[in-house]
């Protein structure tokens, strides 16, 4: 599609983000943190980027994304425990399970907008969460699936063991790089433009002739699949899959991360949000047990005074002219 300007596949910001992450294992222990935190941040950054495809890039306020993350985690665990304990197969199973869940949800809610969209995603999120808790024979109930292993990466010629947090970190980083590149291309493609049109004015996008329903369904399924990928990685990192991540709380946390970081205005906002959220949890949590009290207040203040999030503070006013190239 012709457009006023083209966005390069690789940008300096993108390379800087990847490079910065690549150095994390070298210094994270020297600043008093621990290697596993890096893994967690990257997993949630991937999840938040996938989530922002729906919230920030398409304007669809899903409040039940935890379901897809959780479906991915269970998909990974069940595939490993019952089918083939192969990393690529299990990650594929995670994506497939979450995409299937996304397809089911999308079929019901893609003609909805605004708050009704939120309310129905909450309802579907609760359904999946409830099933995860109650279907003991498959999901392990409240305890979840235990004994999920960190499978080695089979690269044909070589095999990399992921049992150490540093090697797992670099594997998750590789996935993060692929996912962020894919999403960057997607939101700057003609498909991404239509999503933006739907976000700005759904009715007008429909009148122009786009089949809005199909785009909204496609974007939810895609976002669900990638959230499931993050969920699969999380199951591997935690060595378990449990229903908590599907609860309304966790679905809200991912919204918090995405908004706090500035997902509504910048592509990388969700990544910043995931870092801030998890750091706040550990740092505030080190001083007081009620860290959510302080983070919740910060979040409320942000919604009131700075709804574009932390990412919005770093942007130059020039963004009003070129909202895409951030």
């Amino acid at each position: 599609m012709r457009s006023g300007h083209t966005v390069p596949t690789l940008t300096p910001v993108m390379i800087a983000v990847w490079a910065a992450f690549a150095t994390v294992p070298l210094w994270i222990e020297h600043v008093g943190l621990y290697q596993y935190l890096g893994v967690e941040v990257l997993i949630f950054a991937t999840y938040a980027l996938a989530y922002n495809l729906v919230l920030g890039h398409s304007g669809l306020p899903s409040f039940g994304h935890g379901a897809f993350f959780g479906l991915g985690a269970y998909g990974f665990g069940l595939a490993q425990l019952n089918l083939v304990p192969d990393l690529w197969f299990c990650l594929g199973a995670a994506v497939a399970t979450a995409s299937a869940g996304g397809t089911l949800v999308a079929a019901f809610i893609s003609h909805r907008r605004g708050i009704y969209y939120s309310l129905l995603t909450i309802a579907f999120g609760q359904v999946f969460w409830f099933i995860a808790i109650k279907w003991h024979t498959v999901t392990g109930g409240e305890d979840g699936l235990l004994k999920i292993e960190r499978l080695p990466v089979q690269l044909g010629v070589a095999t990399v063991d992921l049992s150490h947090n540093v090697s797992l970190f670099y594997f998750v980083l590789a996935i993060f790089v692929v996912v962020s590149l894919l999403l960057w291309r997607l939101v700057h493609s003609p498909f991404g433009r239509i999503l933006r049109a739907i976000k700005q004015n759904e009715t007008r996008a429909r009148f122009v002739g786009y089949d809005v329903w199909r785009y909204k369904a496609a974007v939810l399924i895609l976002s669900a699949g990638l959230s499931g990928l993050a969920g699969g990685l999380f199951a591997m990192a935690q060595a378990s899959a449990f229903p908590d991540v599907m609860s309304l709380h966790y679905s809200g946390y991912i919204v918090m991360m995405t908004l706090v970081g500035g997902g509504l205005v910048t592509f990388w906002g969700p990544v910043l949000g995931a870092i801030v959220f998890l750091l706040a949890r550990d740092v505030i949590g080190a001083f007081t047990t009620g860290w959510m009290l302080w983070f919740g207040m910060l979040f409320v203040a942000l919604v009131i005074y700075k709804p574009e999030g932390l990412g919005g503070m770093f942007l130059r006013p020039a963004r009003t002219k070129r909202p895409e190239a951030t």
Partner: protein
Amino acid sequence: MSIIGLLPHLVNGVALGLLFALLALGFMLILGLMEQINLAHGSLFALGAYFAYAIATPRLPLPPDLLQAWAAAPLGWRFAAAVFVAPVLVAPFGVVLERLMRRTYGRDPLYGLLLTFGAAMVIEELIRIVWGTRDYMLPVPRGISGGFLMLDLVWSTYRFWAAGFAVIAMAVVWLVIERTRFGALVKAGAHDSEIVQALGHDLEKLRVGVFVLGTMMAAVAGVILAPVWGIRPHMGVDAVIPAFVIIVLGGVGSFWGAVLGGLLVGMVVGLAGAYASEWSMLSMYLLLILVVTFRSRGLFGKKSVLEA
């Protein structure tokens, strides 16, 4: 299972439905009249239950002799005091929340939802800090607790009292909305805020009034439901979900929609409990998805700003 066998489940379902409707009503007031989703509704509900516990047991920050005198009072008095005083104590939280939400009026309703989600997290954490994570039980006076035998079945007495109280509370709300000047102004303000302001009415005060009414409804529901569901920090989230299911089911902004939605959910959960008690709460979501698939605005919903 025969029809007769199902009857107790149906009766319990209706009683539960009335309680659900009470729970949803405050949520509906704020949503229907102010077009704000208050996800902190459940947390205010939880606060009501905790305050009631503090008043009735009693665990209050009072001078020792005063506290002793109060503890010596019959449980019936203390319980009655809890029902009426706890909502008053929760009301200031509603005032603060409304003040915070003021900045989001006129913006995408999503911001109100996010703000109240943050507020819910804060209140839940406050509850954990003050009362800890353990469960509490609100004691019920002897006269209305226990059970009785009817048709060879044991029935919980308190559930019927609670359902009766729910009916009274709903009737009061209905009278306030439909039969007072305040209710008329609030409804007019929701319909056309500019004209109401042009006529010289203080819309800000009206909004605070609605929010406080909704908050107190949440707290009343918390007190009434506490002996049935127990008191624990995450009871707020457990409660706000059925409340919003009922609202979407009944239709946003409809009083009778909320009541009917509550009854429907109660009966479906009650009947589902007869066949698979483990899964009974799931039936509520399936009912919601089924209804809104065919009736997109719920049973009695009207078109509103929330769909934009």
